[in-house]
């Protein structure tokens, strides 16, 4: 479960991309029971995260995942992918397990979430994915010290099998690789032809990421940038 690692992009783009994860160790009864029922503590985690403008937030409840993703409305539902509102996720009363996620574009929101989590001492293990300098600064300001890091050494082996960088930037926002490079290409094409807005294209990609850790705001920016760059190259070549 390294699914929030290996997100690709420029420093400028990655500094607008944070994922906060809560988890408990399945084998630790002490963490499961620390300061009361686990479900109540995860619910509180989601309430805190939900109060600071997440791009995405996810609750596991009643045998399914409640997924709020910025820009996703019910008329965009397809297959098993169903949108939830932010209120539905943070108001959910049937929380299961210790896992919750939230995605942000803004370091200030991460600082505030961490500060609140430290104050409330929920006992959940919390992992923040993002540019280390940004995350460490958020820790400092929230009164925390980083405990352990998971660093990406990138991709090794037959690099020629990988798609172009903008496609990788989009697809690596789902660490389980549920977003096809072909779908990413098609979304860029449809935005380029005016058939779809960048925001709607970002949602169609994000829906495939069942963990709901996809950053639709960042994705729309990548799509816009790629469409503009391809148009510029086409003009030069014609």
């Amino acid at each position: 479960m390294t699914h929030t690692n290996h997100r690709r992009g420029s420093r400028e783009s990655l500094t607008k991309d944070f994922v906060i994860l809560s988890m408990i160790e399945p084998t630790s009864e002490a963490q499961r029971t620390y300061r009361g029922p686990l479900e109540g503590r995860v619910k509180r985690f989601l309430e805190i995260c939900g109060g600071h403008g997440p791009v995405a937030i996810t609750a596991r409840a009643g045998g399914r995942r409640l997924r709020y993703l910025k820009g996703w409305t019910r008329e965009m539902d397809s297959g098993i992918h169903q949108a939830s509102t932010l209120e539905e996720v943070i108001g959910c009363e049937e929380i299961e397990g210790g896992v919750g996620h939230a995605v942000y574009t803004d370091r200030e929101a991460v600082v505030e979430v961490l500060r609140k989590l430290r104050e409330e001492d929920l006992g959940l293990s919390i992992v923040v994915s993002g540019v280390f300098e940004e995350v460490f600064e958020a820790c400092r300001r929230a009164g925390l010290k980083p405990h352990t890091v998971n660093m990406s050494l990138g991709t090794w082996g037959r690099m020629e099998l990988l798609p172009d960088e903008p496609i990788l930037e989009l697809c690596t926002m789902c660490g389980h690789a549920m977003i096809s490079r072909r779908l990413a290409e098609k979304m860029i094409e449809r935005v380029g032809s005016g058939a779809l807005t960048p925001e709607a294209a970002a949602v169609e990609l994000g829906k495939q990421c069942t963990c709901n850790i996809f950053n639709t705001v960042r994705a729309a920016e990548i799509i816009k940038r790629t469409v503009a760059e391809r148009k510029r190259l086409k003009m030069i070549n014609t």
Partner: protein
Amino acid sequence: MKIDEDKCVRCRQCMVYCPVGAIKEDEDTVYIDQDLCVECGVCLRSGACRVGAIYQPQLGWPRILRAQFSDPLVPHPSTGIMGRGTSEMKTNDVTGRFREGEVGFAVEMGRPGVSTSFAEVEKVTKALAGRVEFEPLNPVTSLIDPETGRLRDPDVRRERVLSAIIEFKTSEDRGLEILRLLKEVSEGLETVFSLCVISRCRDFEIPFRERMVTAGFQPRINGKTNVGLGRPLA
């Protein structure tokens, strides 16, 4: 995954959703290449098929491994949790799985989005066997003999998955040697892997990061940070 030819209207809408390009067409049909399909379930879940032609057949051994390793909504029997690995550093504040002076690795074969056969996974596990401590709870470890790195069931070799994570740890002192070994092994692979290196922090420093940089291995600017809020602390 399969497509029911009698239901399929050949609209081709499903084809772009497949992460590994396994949905193909010929003159008469749209079909799923069973060698390439990793049973991730993306095509079925997407709702791209308006006539319900895509279906999940019953999977037996060893093909069931494809779903267990590729579909994050299928719990893996060796861990009981969804996903392809363990809780690794995410709960290290509580487990102490990685102690000071130790370094953890996650070699995620086939990532990002390329996929891998277990024959490729075995190339790496064989090279590592005897040099590292494989994570006992990891799904790949459950398939290999940790002494040799060989797959216990040779029939598993031909199975393809979206990705499979080899997790292990060693001492910081041996960490650089392992990185050099992985570099060498990567040159003989038919696929790619994404590499994670896990290290404890000392205040706001990451001592092993500096050792890697000095040795010519440059970590990316972004990654994951366990902020030490889990309780009770290990």
